């Protein structure tokens, strides 16, 4: 019974993160408004972070912090290396979104529109 629950959980978590990446890619490739494209980039970031943290999980594991009284529980701790990488990736993803939105404001002031059909240099 426990083995079956873990199988259902594995399919649902990996499937949800892959679906998030696909929905974000659809928004970047198809939509015509610039703000919608930046929203799609932000959704792709969320999907990738969930995938990275789900790889480092250990069954019956606990958080990698040595509280007083738990100093010898090294064998049951989850992997701490993907968590350190995702911590950096969240902050840098926010910086990229902020710079992209400031470029959108600047483009709106120059062309007076936000559709990429009008701004000729972005045509597919």
């Amino acid at each position, binding site marked *: 019974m426990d083995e079956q629950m873990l199988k259902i959980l594995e399919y649902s978590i990996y499937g949800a993160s892959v679906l998030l990446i696909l929905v974000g890619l659809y928004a970047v490739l*198809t939509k015509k408004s610039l703000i919608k494209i930046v929203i799609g980039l932000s959704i792709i970031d969320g999907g990738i972070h969930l995938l990275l943290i789900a790889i480092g999980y250990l069954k019956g594991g606990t958080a990698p912090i040595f509280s007083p009284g738990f*100093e010898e529980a090294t064998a049951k701790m989850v992997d701490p290396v993907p968590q350190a990488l995702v911590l950096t990736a969240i902050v*840098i993803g926010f910086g990229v979104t902020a710079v992209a939105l400031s470029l959108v404001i600047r483009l709106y002031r120059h062309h007076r529109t936000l559709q990429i059909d009008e701004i000729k240099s972005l045509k597919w």
Partner: protein
Amino acid sequence: MRKFIVLLILAVLGYFMFDIFSGLHLGEPHFVNGVKDFYLSKTVSDLHVANTITSIVVNFRGFDTLGEVTVLFLAVSAMGSVLYKKRHEAGTRTVLFASSNIVRSGSKLLFPAIMLLGAYVFIHGHLSPGGGFQGGTIIATGFLLMLLAYRDFKVSHHILSYVESFAGIIFVVVGLFGFMGGGTFLQNFMPAGELNELFSGGVIGIIYVMVGFKVAAELTGLIYTILHEKD
């Protein structure tokens, strides 16, 4: 027509990605004899630090943290140079209607509590979950609350840029002092204390406090720049 081609490409990509990731079973240890055993054992025996993520981010891979702080600084300065035209004078904004009494008096009570929580989180970064980045963003959220509630809340731009530069310079200087102790950049040269004490871990406490100040000043400057835009 174009949407149909895009959907076809995405379906093929989704099938291949799901096929790769269902070979990795959830809950099995994937990396046997990897770096995680080294990091988990060295944290308690050498550094006497309770939070493993803090010791990885500041001590074992500390150069990446210096790069990340530099990327945030570049993002804020790029925003400031793109949006340079026609800013409001400091403190005046066009709003549709003033905030109500509840918002104004409530935010005046909440603002010192949020600053205290943010300072607590980045000072005790090596003992419990937290650290410089988390505490810095909590303080920036407190400043955002005050900027939204009051029309004429001023944050002096000069003080923000001085605090940010000063914190960054101290980070690099502490790294350069590592040359005297062991021989590499960002080496831990101060004595490590006891486990679960406030002054443990050597250089880690000082570096994380400086990173907390720098991230708080940068994010407050970013919010301030984008709020004072004029059409």
